[in-house]
């Protein structure tokens, strides 16, 4: 129980966000952003209030996958605050709003960290059920800032099936352990391609990476997302796969994964409810 006489809750920008979920891999190119956007869309369809923070300063892709109806803006009455962009009812912030789409964000780590800190502290998310943080690849400075500055309730680890991908993904899992961030599950992307004519599954990138990770760490496997044109097309066109191709297997796996994550988070919330979250002790 928080004892207000001796220790107080820290003022925190994300205090009205019920759950903060990281989507990480350690590795680039496994489909973290695709997964984050589609988990957000799936949660939205379940009636939840959702936001996405695109923490990939060097290669933001959120804007393409989830085009905004209203861009981010200065807060009308609080000049230091940022009102996030909104697309399909999902609140979003990304470096992509602040640079040309073809331009490289060639900045050093302190600047990148400053941007992330602003996204966490200055964006007016208001009340959300879930804020997804789309982690950049790697296990370095920005990941540390995200883990220190936002109290992440749980992490979704994305991998592809091949052993080479697992090398980096294991590091991301180890980082979560070091930061005491609970891992909600592993989601394997690009698991196989299913021949529509014969129904045969072809494992083009190898087989079973997600299952191997799950077996060696005890982290639940949330699903295996097949390679489907509908998924990549929806991302390229900024469309909602749950509207355009709800019957495709990728959409089904992502929807099921979002439900499993929601279930896991509710359990965590019950266990964690009585403990301190963001606190400070001012010495007397």
């Amino acid at each position, binding site marked *: *129980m928080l*004892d207000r006489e*001796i*220790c107080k809750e*820290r003022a925190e920008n994300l205090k009205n966000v019920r759950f903060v979920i990281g989507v990480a891999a350690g590795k680039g190119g496994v489909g973290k952003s695709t997964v984050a956007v589609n988990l957000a869309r799936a949660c939205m369809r379940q009636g939840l209030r959702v936001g996405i923070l695109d923490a990939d300063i060097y290669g933001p892709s959120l804007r393409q996958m989830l085009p905004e109806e209203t861009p981010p803006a200065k807060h009308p009455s609080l000049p230091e605050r940022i009102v996030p962009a909104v697309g399909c009812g999902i609140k979003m912030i990304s470096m992509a709003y602040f640079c040309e789409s073809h331009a490289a964000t060639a900045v050093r780590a302190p600047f990148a960290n400053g941007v992330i800190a602003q996204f966490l502290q200055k964006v007016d998310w208001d009340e959300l059920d879930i804020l997804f943080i789309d982690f950049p690849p790697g296990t370095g400075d920005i990941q540390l800032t995200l*883990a*220190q*500055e*936002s*109290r*992440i309730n749980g992490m979704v680890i994305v991998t592809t099936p091949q052993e080479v991908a697992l090398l980096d993904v*294991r590091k991301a*899992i*180890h980082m979560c*352990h*070091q*930061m*005491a*961030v*609970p*891992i909600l599950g592993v989601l394997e992307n690009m698991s196989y391609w299913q021949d529509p004519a014969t129904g045969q599954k072809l494992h083009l990138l190898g087989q079973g990476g997600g299952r191997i990770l799950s077996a*060696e*760490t*005890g*982290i639940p496997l949330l699903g295996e997302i097949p390679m489907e044109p509908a998924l990549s097309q929806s991302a390229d066109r900024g469309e909602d796969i749950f509207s355009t191709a709800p019957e495709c297997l990728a959409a089904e796996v992502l929807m099921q994964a979002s439900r499993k994550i929601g279930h896991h988070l509710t359990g965590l919330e019950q*266990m*964690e409810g*009585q*403990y*301190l*979250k*963001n*606190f*400070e*002790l*001012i*010495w*007397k």
Partner: protein
Amino acid sequence: MSATTFDPLKLLISRIYQKDAHVFAIEWADGRIYDYRLSDLQKNCPCARCRDEKTGRPLALPSSIDSGLQAVRIYNLGRYALRIEFTNGCSRGVYTFAMLREWGKLG
């Protein structure tokens, strides 16, 4: 690395409070309460300024740390560590909960 043996919920904090001018206490999720003297924590500060880059050993002699050292503020870093702003100006150490649990057990 095994998630079956890793349980971040064991490292949750129920209470943190100042006991006197130099000591604070943490009550952990399992009900255990350990005391922490600020000068002891400063002697073991893990920050880059307090540790030798190559050996990892503390740079300052333990005897040079004022036993009456106090703090300005103590706060959490994410869900895994404390940061302590000491009155001597040191404030960059990341005291992980795992580290504090172990030190607490040692008394």
